[in-house]
């Protein structure tokens, strides 16, 4: 790969900016991650395997990544609907709704966790109606998913919103004059056009959900093998002064997250190439 400026730029300083980027990435991201791997490397290999494949750890991976995946999926659908409503319709209180979207960003996660637990508990506002139906939210994986959905929602809305704004009404009008019904237009024109943004939103929401800790521990109940997420397991290891074990679990999360994010990113690059977004 050729390194350097692609073409002469009016603003000089490629060297400075690249140097700063590298430095910043190292100090903030790469060095801590390397430390993590080193720490995990401090234990011998069979012990490492034992820690990361213990039944309790495996159950926690399933829960963490599974719930994060479901939450991001739910967000993709409802976040899209929210963004659609905000972009396409003008209704009283639109600005207000628009502002509320960002609340999960600002709220300390512990606060949202406590709030959700209170609402969904067996005697809570919503929980009291779900309980007779046999649906238990708190202290089950459903509760965890609800918490992860809450904190991931703004990511999807905020990435899809600008993309939807860019979908020209002309495209829909053109499709309509060509004989397409509304659902056909939605499926064939609107969704493909905002798909890259939707995927980005999904990725961000997923990444955020995998690493979430604060809001989940309140609603999860934290029963080993059942409602114990990996970040919590790591925390427990730390409290037991098993630093190497914690680091080992951390490495696994790191690896899985990295592979999944990379896959989604590659998917997007492929999609963008196909679209030739070179306006």
């Amino acid at each position, binding site marked *: 790969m050729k390194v350097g400026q692609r073409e002469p730029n009016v603003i000089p300083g490629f060297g400075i900016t690249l140097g700063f980027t590298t430095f910043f990435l190292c100090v903030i991201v790469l060095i801590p991650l390397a430390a993590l791997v080193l720490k995990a490397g401090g234990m011998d290999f069979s012990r490492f395997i034992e820690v990361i494949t213990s039944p309790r750890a495996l159950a926690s991976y399933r829960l963490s990544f599974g719930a994060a995946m479901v939450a991001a999926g739910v967000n993709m659908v409802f976040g899209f609907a929210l963004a659609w409503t905000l972009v396409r319709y003008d209704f009283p209180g639109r600005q207000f709704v628009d502002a509320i979207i960002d609340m999960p960003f600002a709220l300390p996660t512990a606060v949202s966790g406590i709030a959700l637990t209170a609402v969904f508990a067996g005697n809570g506002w919503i929980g009291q109606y779900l309980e007779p139906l046999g649906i238990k939210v708190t202290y089950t994986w459903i509760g965890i998913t609800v918490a992860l959905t809450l904190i991931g929602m703004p990511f999807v809305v905020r990435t899809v919103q600008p993309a939807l704004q860019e979908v020209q009404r*002309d495209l829909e*009008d053109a499709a309509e*004059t*060509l004989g397409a019904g509304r659902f056909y237009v939605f499926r*064939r024109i609107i969704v493909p056009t905002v798909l890259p943004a939707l995927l980005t939103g999904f990725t961000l929401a997923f990444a955020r959900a995998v690493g979430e800790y604060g809001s989940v521990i309140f609603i999860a109940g934290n029963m080993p093998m059942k409602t114990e997420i990996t970040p919590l397991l790591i925390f427990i290891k730390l409290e037991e002064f098993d630093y190497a074990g914690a680091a080992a679990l951390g490495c696994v999360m790191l690896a899985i997250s990295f592979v999944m994010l990379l896959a989604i990113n590659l998917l997007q690059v492929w999609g963008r190439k196909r*679209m030739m977004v070179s306006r």
Partner: protein
Amino acid sequence: MAARFSATRPSMSIALDQVTKRYQDQPVVNDVSIEVGEGEFFVLLGPSGSGKSTLLRAIAGLTGIDHGRISLHGRDVTHVRARDRGVGLVFQNYALFRHMTVADNIEFALRVRRMKRAERVARRKELLKLVALEGLDERMPGQLSGGQQQRVAVARALAHKPQVLLLDEPFGALDAKIREELRRTIRAVQRELGITTVLVTHDQEEAFALADTIGVMNHGRLLEVGHPHDLYAQPATRFVATFLGAANLLLARQSAEGIRFGATPVTAEASEPMYAGREHEVVAVLRPEEVELAETREQLSSNFIARGAVEEIAFTGALERLRVRLLDEPCAAQLLGSGNAAEARVEVTRTQPERRELPLRAGTQVALGARRLHVLPTPISSFLACAPTEAEAEELAREPLLEGLSTRMKTRVGLRVIDVEETPAPFAGVAAIAGGDNAVATVEWLLRHGAAEVLVLPRNASSPSRVYIHWSDEAVRRATLAVSASLLRHVTAEAVYLGIVPEGSPVAGRAAPMRKLLDARVEAQQRHGLEMRTELAIGEAVTEITRNLSTGSAQMLVLGITDITQAANAYRSLLAAQPGWPVLIVFRQPHVGLRAAEYAA
């Protein structure tokens, strides 16, 4: 209640009948009726904001309409959804589906219709050949140039064999050369398929190059429809005269003897005089290429109109453009400018042979002649602000409604100090006076001293959104309609004719007013291209007019009268109302100088 005429002939491909579209109560398309014949290339021409694109979207079914009817090939589609109308639409920004290949874009309409693959491919190949893009099937739109993208858009719009092709400023985003090439392609495709086409543009050159028929729109209203050449040579309105190519507007006087500028008689093409027998002011159109320049008046081979000084010369290739300031001489023509009349200049274009014969430099004095003059059949030539003092006249001339009207009509507002004790000089144009207690007396005085139209202006009246039209006597119908049409071409208002049946008249006797009402509507439509709604009220005239004027804000009245004394008594309360409404009084004496034709019907 509006009476309906559905004279839609079956051979008409597109028929719009009184189509109106409002946004927030403002009409953007105002009572437009158009008929486009089978296979015709119709160009809707107008400045931005004239409502032409909205009208196109209404034909496509993408915009609902508030009033009127749209039929395509005899089928009423007013309430039919866009996808079932069978139209093809091409947008200014191409609106191609960027995530699909050219092939998929073109086949979109065919896929929706579940056409078989083999047929789809065959149709696609055929279309790509038609727009000269063979072999580009698998490209993505992003890989094509703007001109190619628009060709794909045209092919896509034609895929499902629509009965009507609609083009919304299709060349707007392209540069000049590609524009012309694509223009030729579209014309060729249209001829080959014989498809009825409506194209929307603001570019008159484009309209001339493509159109079989041009319809000119302004302020939501369709002003004139005709063949390009006829519209250029014989426009009926100031707007069309100046929008279709450059035009110099001159104030002239017309009488039974002919047309004259100042003291100079000229020959000009004119329709029959508006008022026979009495000299009056008219607006004449002089195209820049019809101006002849010579060193002296004697050397002119055409009608002398004025002397002038060359101010500016610009070379533009084939033509030389000059701006000539008219010298202020009593015999000279008066020029109407869109802005300050004092800064108005005559625009002249000369061909190279003409230039070689008489080379000119800035500052040279020349004689101007008119090879061909066309007198507009508009009854409103200019305005004259009349007030007891100069200051009041100036203030009146600055009234927003008057200022707005004169700007839009590209005409001027003169000032006149009036003194009721003296006999005034003849009035030219529409006299404007301030509303209020003295209005009735002033109107009476003006009419008695030769003014034919008087505009009574309340303070700070805004541009009307609805204009009521009423006349007290059928003898003044024609003049009232002509003045109303002239006014309504320049404001975004809807026209409503108010017919009044006296209360207590026998039911059988009500057929006559109804017939008059229908006649009025037909005359407005046929003679002036003015679509107006009609309302019939039962009761006493002034009460009914006042009641209608009070129903909304920004309303105005055009009132035709024949008898000054009677009118002054009858409409006193209306004119003296506070704050009142703008009232344009049209006065014609039935006994003097009116030909028999004007009594008829």
